[in-house]
């Protein structure tokens, strides 16, 4: 029942489509379209995790020692060599270990801290419910990259400070998400019923409220990991991340910057493409998770 040629699709949502069930093929397409992001994302991320784990077997040379003549184009060395003679392919293959570990670690810590704080602030009333959010507002007013930069540059260029920096910039996001979920959940009937039944506070929190806050957190977590990977690469790009010769995509891209101007593309393009595909994988994973859970994401 479409009411005219314009814009038929906007009006063909279920409430207008009385009676006609979508055909089998259409259902398959829409099911796949919904899952497409999830599948593609999971494949990309899965592929990179496998590469990271089996980097030792996949790489052709040791990523921390020069392997051949510097600045040679891809040929005998799969991805060529960089300005110091390191094999680009081996370094590209070893790098995700660092990125995945730091990004996932930092995000996990942020999720834990953010959830605890979010529940605490969400359940609080009065001054304690608003004031901390102003502090988080102020914190989020910073350009995030500069904040991470400040933390790492100040504390020291090692894995610990990078994980701490990533956790630090992500905590406000998770606090916000969890807090808004808690705020809406605590007024719900089933919570009221649980209270009326005489459940102790801790039980209500852990059994009733907490599990229901997890879906938006999960969707945001994949996004946060994606963003964290970019931040780690950006820090290395600015020479503030992990020190060489630890292989890291951002640092490799930075090393190849000069080369780009004279046509030596392989030093930057390969790590950059690798970075883009891994980040893409996490973003698609996040979208897929969201589609499946049908959850509203808080930006």
């Amino acid at each position, binding site marked *: 029942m479409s*009411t*005219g040629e*314009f*814009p038929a*699709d*906007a*009006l063909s*949502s279920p409430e207008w489509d009385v009676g006609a069930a979508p055909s089998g093929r259409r259902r398959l397409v829409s099911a796949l379209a919904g899952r497409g992001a999830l599948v593609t994302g999971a494949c990309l991320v899965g592929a990179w995790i496998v590469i990271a784990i089996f980097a030792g077997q996949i790489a052709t040379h040791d990523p921390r020692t020069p392997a051949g003549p510097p600045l040679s184009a891809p040929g005998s060395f799969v991805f060529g060599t960089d300005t110091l003679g390191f094999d680009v392919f081996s370094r590209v293959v070893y790098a995700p270990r660092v990125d995945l570990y730091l990004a996932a670690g930092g995000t996990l810590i942020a999720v834990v801290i953010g959830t605890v704080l979010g529940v605490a602030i969400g359940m609080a009333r009065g001054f304690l419910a608003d004031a901390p959010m*102003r*502090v988080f*507002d*102020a*914190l989020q*007013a*910073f*350009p*995030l*990259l*500069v904040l991470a*930069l*400040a*933390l790492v*540059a*100040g*504390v020291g260029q090692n894995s610990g400070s990078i994980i701490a920096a990533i956790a630090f910039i992500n905590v406000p996001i998770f606090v916000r998400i969890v807090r808004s979920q808690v705020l809406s959940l605590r007024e719900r009937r089933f919570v009221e019923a649980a209270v009326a039944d005489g459940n102790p506070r801790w039980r209500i929190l852990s059994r009733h409220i907490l599990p229901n806050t997890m879906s938006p957190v999960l969707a945001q977590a994949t996004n946060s990991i*994606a963003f964290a990977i*970019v931040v780690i*690469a*950006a820090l290395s*790009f*600015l020479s*503030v991340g992990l020190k060489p010769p630890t292989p890291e995509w*951002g640092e490799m*891209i930075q090393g*190849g*910057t000069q080369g*780009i*101007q*004279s*046509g030596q*593309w392989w030093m*930057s*393009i390969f790590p*950059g493409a690798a*970075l*883009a*595909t891994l*980040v*893409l994988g996490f*973003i*698609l994973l996040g*979208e897929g998770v969201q589609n499946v859970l049908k959850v509203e994401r808080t930006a």
Partner: protein
Amino acid sequence: MAAVAPSGSTATLSIHRLAPPWVRRWARIIGRRLLFFLITLWLVLTLTWLLTRVVGGNPAFKLAGPTPTPEVVHGIEVKLGLDKPLFTQYVDYLGNLARGRLGTDYFTSQSVGQEVVDRAPATLQLVAFGGLLALLFGLVLGVLSALRRGKPVDHAGRVVSVLALATPDFFLGLLLAYLLFYKLHVFPAPIGQLPVGTAPPTKITSFYLLDGILSGNPGASWAFLKQMFLPALTLGLIYMAPILRLTRASMLDSLASDSVLYAQACGLRRSLVVRYALRQSMTLVVTFLGILIAALIGGDVLVEQVYSWGGLGQFGVEAVVNDNYPAIQAFVLIVGVLALVVYTIVDIVYTLIDPRVRLS
């Protein structure tokens, strides 16, 4: 004319009564905004101050040069006032700030206020142009996606937007520089705001784009525009993605709204109906664009680095890496102030687009 205000509002200025209603309303709105902004700014500056002192390294160490013996380092600390207790330093800082004295750069000994003001126009022009490109690409593709939902254009748009979202900005910058400069020679080398050998135009507004034209030197403006195009394109391509999604979602909502249904029922032609639907969906996009530009003012660091743009972003990064405390504070201050200006402009544009909006 000093007329006494009616007894209901003893705190109002006497002239207040004589100002037309719209001036009064805007004064109230801006006044409240300013108050809120000042509190947030104070909070941000204090947090920065604390963070750099507590977490940061010791700038005296970096300034001590090749022989950082404890005596030399301590001497520098005394000179910079870093040996005083934290609370005293903080009070001194606030006092100076209130008097408009932002401090001197530890490394260049110039006024940091001057330094940030010098670099702001470069970043502003880049971010404005980049935001405009993002708006252009995002709007066009978003509207097309919404109008032809489910068709190839829609899917292509979604694919492009996810790709753009996933690509890190510094990588895209390098990629564009490689393709469009090295390979195709369409744009000049990524070496900064002006090509080698071109002198900056005489300083009228300190915005190179305008100064060139205003001082009768359009060649300089054109050269600047060419240098600016690649970094702006980088920013535009990346931030086109969220604008595309937002426009598409917003447009789909507005196409399904009652007002569009009514317009159709009235028999208006298609292009007109689309225009009305678009107008309805613009408020969300404008808000987002404002947030985006404000965020980019401090956040375009990487693109500035790749193209040696010499704006606020690069300045902030260098200040942070060098523990240049006054520079860091000045950077945060100017980013905050510029962000407020952008948000206010967005709100004004809001009321122009949608007359139903009443800013409370």
